């Protein structure tokens, strides 16, 4: 009798999880092709362009060669051969290929980059690059200084913290301070269990330059972050839940107060906030099912999609109402598993987890 009850409870729980996960899983979703204008891949990137950070004068820094430390046994072995790199792309000279940026010597042999962000000093034009690095032992946040003439990065500081459980993205809010999002707790194959069961082990850490503190706790499915143009709000994506959570930032201590959630209707990855239009640009996966198939075999294409959230609300509450646009879609043949998108002066870059980088002119 008790056994029957337990079996029934487990079955009901499993059914509920399947129901909750299924819209995000997109078993029947197709990757429809549509373009905002002429699009092409950017040489020489072929092993991923997971995240992109864009300066206000149109220079994009792209993290490439991510080797996700999830269930490696399930993934295509080719991913383990990837080399971690940072590339630079100039929107002001888009015909030029992306250029590899020289890494600091300390990181040359231990670089597995994920989320990227930057901080630019308004007066001196100094530029710092913040990169989530899945080092062999820990997840670190590498704070690096960019040298324009030499096109190289020098390590300023490598930040470690016990609060960094599984860092996904980084958001710089000063030359030394940042937010880091933990997309979960477990590494390796245990992560699949974490997702399937829906354990809320993700968090957001605020590092003020000296100490780290947890500003969002006990959340699942956290992914990427962006900052509003005026610096008062933080946007946080939740992938399977297909949502952007908007937080107000406390000036005194960097704490985050939840404001509202926007339902985007597709599994979203990285987010970019356009400072000019306030639009939010997202790399998205119209089928997590096909995404997981692509991870086990890189030759199996997975669809890509870019979503643009255009705010319609008043200044006090910009995303109280909004429009959802989709300027780019692909069946995976041009780009598989789009994870990020940035916009600059009627041009767009689309990044992917393990595939190419795409540049589009926007004519529509």
């Amino acid at each position, binding site marked *: 009798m008790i056994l029957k009850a337990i079996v029934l409870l487990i079955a009901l729980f499993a059914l509920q999880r399947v129901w909750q996960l299924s*819209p995000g899983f997109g*078993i*029947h*979703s*197709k*990757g*429809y*092709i*549509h*373009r*905002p*204008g*002429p699009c092409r891949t950017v040489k020489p990137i072929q092993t991923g362009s997971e995240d992109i950070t864009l300066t206000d004068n149109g220079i994009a820094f792209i993290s490439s060669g991510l080797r996700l430390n999830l269930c490696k046994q399930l993934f295509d072995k080719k991913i383990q051969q990837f080399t971690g790199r940072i590339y630079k792309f100039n929107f002001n000279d888009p015909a030029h290929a992306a250029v590899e940026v020289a890494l600091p010597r300390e990181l040359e042999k231990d670089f597995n980059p994920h989320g990227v962000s930057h901080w630019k000093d308004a007066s001196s034009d100094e530029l710092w690059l913040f990169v989530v690095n899945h080092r062999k032992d820990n997840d670190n946040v590498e704070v690096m200084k960019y040298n324009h003439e030499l096109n190289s990065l020098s390590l300023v500081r490598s930040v470690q913290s016990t609060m960094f459980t599984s860092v996904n993205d980084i958001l710089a809010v000063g030359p030394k301070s940042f937010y880091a999002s933990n997309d979960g707790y477990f590494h390796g194959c245990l992560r699949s269990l974490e997702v399937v069961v829906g354990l809320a082990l993700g968090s957001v850490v605020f590092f003020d330059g000296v100490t780290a503190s947890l500003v969002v706790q006990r959340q699942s499915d956290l992914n990427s972050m962006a900052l509003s143009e005026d610096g008062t709000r933080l946007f946080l994506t939740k992938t399977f839940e*297909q949502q952007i959570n908007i937080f107000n930032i406390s000036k005194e201590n960097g704490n985050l107060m939840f404001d509202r959630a926007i*339902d*985007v*209707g*597709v599994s979203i990855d990285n987010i970019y906030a356009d400072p000019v239009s306030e639009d939010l640009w997202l790399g998205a996966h119209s089928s997590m099912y096909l995404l997981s198939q692509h991870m086990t075999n890189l030759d199996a294409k997975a669809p890509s999609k870019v*979503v643009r959230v255009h705010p319609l609300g008043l200044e006090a509450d910009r995303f109280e109402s909004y*429009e*959802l*646009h*989709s*300027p780019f*879609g692909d*069946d995976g043949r041009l780009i598989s598993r789009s994870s990020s998108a940035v916009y600059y002066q009627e041009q767009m870059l689309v990044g992917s987890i393990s595939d190419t980088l795409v540049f589009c002119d926007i*004519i*529509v």
Partner: protein
Amino acid sequence: MFLKTVAFILLAFLVQRAWKLSLGFGTSDVGYINRPGPCRNVAPIETGSEDIAVTSNGLAFISSGMQLSDMCSSAVDARFSQFVGRIYVFDFQNSKQDAVEVSLPKELQYNFSPHGIDLLEDSETGEILLFVVNHRKIGEFVEILSYQPESRSLSMVRSVTHELFTSLNDVLAIDRNSFLVSNDAYFRSCWRILEPLLGLRWCNFIYFDGTVGQSIIENGHDFNSVALSRNGKQVYLTRPSEMKLEIYNRSKGTETLKLHQSINVGMAVDNVFSDQSTGDLWLGSHPSLALLTKHLSDIDLRAPSQVIRIQPLGPQNDPFNTYKLFSPFGDDGELVSGSSSAVHFKDKLLIGTVAHKVAYCEVQS
């Protein structure tokens, strides 16, 4: 024990039906806005543009004002009974002009609830014959009408009804007297809701040869729109709830159809247009049948719209052996709600809806 078994079987059946229905129902689907170029509405159409047929010169005939109230009035917005059935004509070659209403033959005034539409052009005389599915009060009809361009009017050639016409949706003209026509349900009343719920297969697809009507596909459900391939050798049929476009090999003369291929389009597809110049198939589609249903029960509620283009990449004798799926147009329902049809003419697009407006787009990307 017996009761438990029955309850269990019923539960298993319901779960399976819920699963099958949910896939097509699109409960979490959003209408993303994307355009192939500048788009705008075409005046004065506001009460539907369910289906569109185009001549080789770019003259588009649009069926408008389908009443739907004969199809379970309690489930649809009461305003449908006020809709007036019309045919509009829009000229792609003079796209700045509004759509113009075409006058109907006297027999059809106050007796016109048009649905699917097709046309035949006589290459010698230039005559345009329109075939229109009409949900008359007394039954399901296919009206064959001749277009008089000087007076912008339609004259009645022939009115066809048949006991096999249970709930007509779309028509495919074969010649002056014969056509293929689809039934999208068995019941025309509220009982029709049972058909998808229980998975009943009581629909058929009919060939009318001018004298006799016969089922050429039986025991189906949800046959929606029909179109012909460029070479006349294949018939395309849409199945909205299964999100499929089916391709049948056709034997001319006997009009026997044999299922050749099924393309899963990933969305509830409505009307199909076969582009004679490229061989592409253009589909008006519904990202969310759930939101479409709500829109039909309250016209003010917006339903997302999407246009899908299937580009054939296979050899001449099997063009859709490989293909690509494009989605050149998407809307959240503000410009057009519930897109049911899309036709393409020389880099321009016309998008029709079940109960809303029409959109005209230039295709630049």
